[in-house]
């Protein structure tokens, strides 16, 4: 037996090795949060990082429901939005009355706002899981979103309620006017909230949430009321969503009805699912990717939502474990030392798959330019090559890329499967794959 085979799992198995890896990961995350804006210091990237940070907390809070407890909510943004409104109202009150509450504490008030509503409606909502819960969450989401337009004094109607974050008492001489200061405020809360949500999964309640997700009927026969478990999980999810909403209010200096609407609820579902619900870091990846795409794609194409939909469908169909699931699939191969057997097949498959993707993008853009947005002009810029949407040459190119990419791609995809069979069976023989 080679030494690599025995040593890797042994380090993970010893408590001290586990602790070292655990604290190492969090330390790296903390350093990354501090260093990021120093490396990418443009205003645009600061704004992006701030939005990504908020999305990470929001997606992690959603995964307390979806990944940990097995509750599919279509109205999670309600808690995000109410957290935002709680934060905005308090910020205005602090500014008007001169209370000694500094800005960094405001997100906590957002959390309390999200928690309060969860405490209020959660008990009724979590009586049943599955479709019943999903439908009620959709109804509550619509209910709150529509009342936000009716109750103008609380929600400010269409325009929302604005605030001024610099009007709060300064702390450490920080006014929180510059975006960099807001970024560090968000980064601090991302770190604290992520740590707290991770810790939650390692508590008795967190473990029982998983048990309720897997088999709520059985949980009743080991002494637990699954309704109480779901309710507690719902309250925690509401609290952390409220923190994210509070941070959004600080960042944008406004809270409006869009915060608590179905679009926002859909986005968090998107991000969490694309990232992967089975691993704690999955929603983090999803939040980063979805926010980045949202910011990036809107500049490049008018039909960015279409691409979102395609990505989502592709993940649901081909990688239901999300990006995290795809990555973690390779862990047994790494341990067994057979990862090198599959990598070449990936590289070979990358080219035709990329061609297929380019063909699809080209045809989508051609149609989009032709029909919807003629004002954009007819030049499609793909990988630095300009294509004229009205030229038959472009259509032929798209067709060739799609058909050729698919035919060649299918062969290479099969070779990935074959390589996986070989690498997997060796990993299974060595005891790294069940």
């Amino acid at each position: 037996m080679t030494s690599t085979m025995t040593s890797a799992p042994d380090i993970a198995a010893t408590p001290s090795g586990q602790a070292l890896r655990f604290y190492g990961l969090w330390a790296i995350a903390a350093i990354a949060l501090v260093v990021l804006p120093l490396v990418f210091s443009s205003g645009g990237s600061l704004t992006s990082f701030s939005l990504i940070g908020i999305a990470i907390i929001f997606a992690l809070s959603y995964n307390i429901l979806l990944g940990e407890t097995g509750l599919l909510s279509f109205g999670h943004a309600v808690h995000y939005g109410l957290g935002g409104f709680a934060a905005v109202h308090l910020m205005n009150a602090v500014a008007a009355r001169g209370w000694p509450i500094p800005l960094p504490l405001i997100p906590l008030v957002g959390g309390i706002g999200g928690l309060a509503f969860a405490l209020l409606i959660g008990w009724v909502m979590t009586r049943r899981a599955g479709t019943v819960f999903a439908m009620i969450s959709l109804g509550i989401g619509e209910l709150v979103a529509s009342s936000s337009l009716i109750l103008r004094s609380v929600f400010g109607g269409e325009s929302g309620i604005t605030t001024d974050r610099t009007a709060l008492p300064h702390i450490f001489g920080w006014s929180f006017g510059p975006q960099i200061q807001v970024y560090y405020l968000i980064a601090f809360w991302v770190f604290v909230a992520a740590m707290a949500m991770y810790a939650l999964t390692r508590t008795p309640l967190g473990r029982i949430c998983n048990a309720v997700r897997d088999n709520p009927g059985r949980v009743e026969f080991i002494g637990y009321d699954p309704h109480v478990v779901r309710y507690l999980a719902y309250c925690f999810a509401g609290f952390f969503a409220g923190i994210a909403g509070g941070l959004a209010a600080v960042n944008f200096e406004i809270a409006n009805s869009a915060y608590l609407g179905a679009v926002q609820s859909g986005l968090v579902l998107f991000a969490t699912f694309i990232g992967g619900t089975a691993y704690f870091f999955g929603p983090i990846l999803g939040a980063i990717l979805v926010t980045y795409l949202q910011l990036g794609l809107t500049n490049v194409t008018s039909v960015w939502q279409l691409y979102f939909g395609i990505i989502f469908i592709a993940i649901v169909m081909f990688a239901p474990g999300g990006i995290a699931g795809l990555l973690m699939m390779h862990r047994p191969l790494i341990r067994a030392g057979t990862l090198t057997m599959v990598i070449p097949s990936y590289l070979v498959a990358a080219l035709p798959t990329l061609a297929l993707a380019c063909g699809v993008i080209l045809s989508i853009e051609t149609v989009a330019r032709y029909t919807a947005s003629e004002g954009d002009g007819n030049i499609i810029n793909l990988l630095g090559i300009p294509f004229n949407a009205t030229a038959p040459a472009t259509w032929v190119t798209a067709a060739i890329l799609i058909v050729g990419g698919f035919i060649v791609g299918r062969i290479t995809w099969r070779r990935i499967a074959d390589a996986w069979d070989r690498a997997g069976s060796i990993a299974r023989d060595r005891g790294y794959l069940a």
Partner: protein
Amino acid sequence: MTPAIEVRAVEKRFGNVSIIHDLNLSVAKGERHAIIGPNGAGKSTTFNLISGYIRPSSGEIRLNGDVISGLRPFEINRRGLSRSFQVTNVFARMTVWENVRCAVLWATGYRYGFWKNVDELPEVRRRTAEILEDIHLSHRRDVPAGLLTYAEQRELEIGITIAGGANVIMLDEPTAGMSHAETERAVALIRRLTEGRTLVIVEHDMSVVFGLADRISVLVYGRIIASGTPEEIRGNPKVKEAYLGEEAH
């Protein structure tokens, strides 16, 4: 002495259909009691009634002298009654270790706790390790329960059932679908693990029933037609006619 389980005049109707009529059953403390009967006699329904999975339409069920009919399953479980299921009913995506640990948590008093690290509870860790040792699954502790073999899942099912330390254990066909060797292993396991506790077991395998039980009740069409020691049941003509007769072909 108060019986561990006492079922008095329990009836269960679904609409107009009565599937359990006038069920009377008494299981003494420390007894190993088997319930046998043909398919559809209401054995699993009896289990479901006692464990709170369904409520009786009328009648009364007592656990250690306290009325438990009408309580929810988790309330009954907290009073010291734990059951297994005929169809394997584990937490499929969680590891073997986590399955057993979840079943230990309530009994050790950690309940819905969200302020303690579950990996740093020495008592929970010790009891979980003990149970795993008992059900011979220590070497499989990090395998997701859904990936275990069928026999291993049945053993895990028993482990989850006994993990909470309940003094009344109810096992619903624990050896169903097992090979002869696996059955023998399972019976030895059940005998050892229920030492000093009350056991109620539903079982089709007559060698298991007569080898394990102190007393046997025969359930036919929702009614107990006989209750007694294995010898009495073997010699009972009513039982022979209703049940053993059709088995002993």
